[in-house]
């Protein structure tokens, strides 16, 4: 197994273990208890103002995706 694949495997296992721990500690939150979660700054995912930032980063870097945005298409990228 190459070093890169090994690192990827370790990251995946660590994420899965972290996810299992986190999801196991969830409590049910009622609608009326969501005032903090519903705050505009608490939105999961990229916000509108980050659109151009995400766009230039996906062209100036080799990695892209997993941020809820589009995953291909639409730029000759000079």
């Amino acid at each position: 197994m190459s070093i890169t694949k090994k690192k990827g495997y370790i990251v995946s296992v660590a994420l899965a273990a972290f996810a299992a721990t986190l999801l196991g500690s969830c409590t049910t939150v009622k609608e009326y208890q969501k005032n903090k979660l519903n705050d505009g700054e608490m939105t999961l995912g990229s916000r509108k103002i980050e659109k151009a930032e995400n766009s230039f980063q996906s062209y100036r870097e080799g990695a892209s995706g997993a941020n809820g945005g589009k995953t291909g298409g639409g730029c000759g990228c000079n």
Partner: protein
Amino acid sequence: MKKICLSVVGIFLTLFSAFAQPAAKDSSEYKSRKLTFEEANLVSSYYRQDGNNSAVTGGIGTEKLTDIASVIDVKLNKWDARNRKHSFDVEVGYDHYTSASSDKIDPRNISSASHVDSRLYPSVNWSMENQKKGSTIGAGVSFSNEFDYTSYGANVMFAQKTKNRNGEFTAKAAVFLDKVSLILPIELQPGYPNNVRGEDGERSKGDYGSSARNSYSGTLSYSQIVNQRLQVEFLMDVIYQTGFLGLPFHRVYFADNSLHVETLPDTRLKIPIGFRANYFLGDKFIIRTYYRYYHDDWGLSAHTINIETPYKITPFFSITPFFRYNTQTAIDYFAPYKVHTAADPFYSSNYDLSKFSSNFYGAGFRIAPPKGVFGIQRLNMLEVRYGHYTKTNGMKSDIISLNLKFK
């Protein structure tokens, strides 16, 4: 007599019930059947960059570029007879950019591809949410066009909330069918140095051949409320690209001084995995975090972390410092100027695919007063954000963005 009385009461009750109005429903349950405006966003940004590793000139030369981008996004919705919410998102984006390195594709013909160029990218998305079942389905189409590149996109999605409405699973599939105009560096165009041009001395899109580039992506995500202050999201994409995946005007100089066009494999499989966590600390601090691990079959791996800490000076005014760090390995086919040899099956001197680390940091502010920004009721929110970006290979850029939200 008794029969007559019962008959009269019966007739009265029948008539009463026939003309009686149905019980009034709670007005809070009223949902508009008409298409109504929900919100509109105008996002404009100015971006500039500079560096000395342009892929157009084989990994050396200026990367100077400026881009002005504006996107208008309008969201409309309506409720159908079965109480399902239909949302329509119409977006139109326009970029205008200048690129110093693109002059070097054909220094004699700087108006085409593309000392100055523009990109237009409209899209329409529809979704239907069934609040009773907690499910949403959706679909969308997109288009993008610039001088040397055209893209048609389509997507479908499905989302399902958990029983307690604290978690949501989303699946999305998208396809982009793109066409790349084969604009070669001037020295490699047929007939050089006496290349034939159009009647007006310039070339049009039709003067060049083209090649396909198709992208297929599948996205799975799961978001979960952990408690009253914390929510998290897991994301994973699988992206498969096929076709012409380099750019035809990217030069590659071999060690023997010969000139070639960037040549890369005709398939690429990308797998990014992401995680987000947003936490409301006390009454004024929010901590937004993001991590992504990326790997593809060209040998590129990357780690990206992002942290933002919005601080609420008042409930309607906040400032947000942010920091992003990215580190990546090079693709297997990258080498700098005059390093590749004829023994290499694939070759590129594009420094965006080289090994480097990058930092992106800056700050923004957001105003969302209940009576509207500057007292304009319709102007619901104003946000401004500036960021400075540096790469370890010397490239640097700045971006400033403005978001106006109308409701």
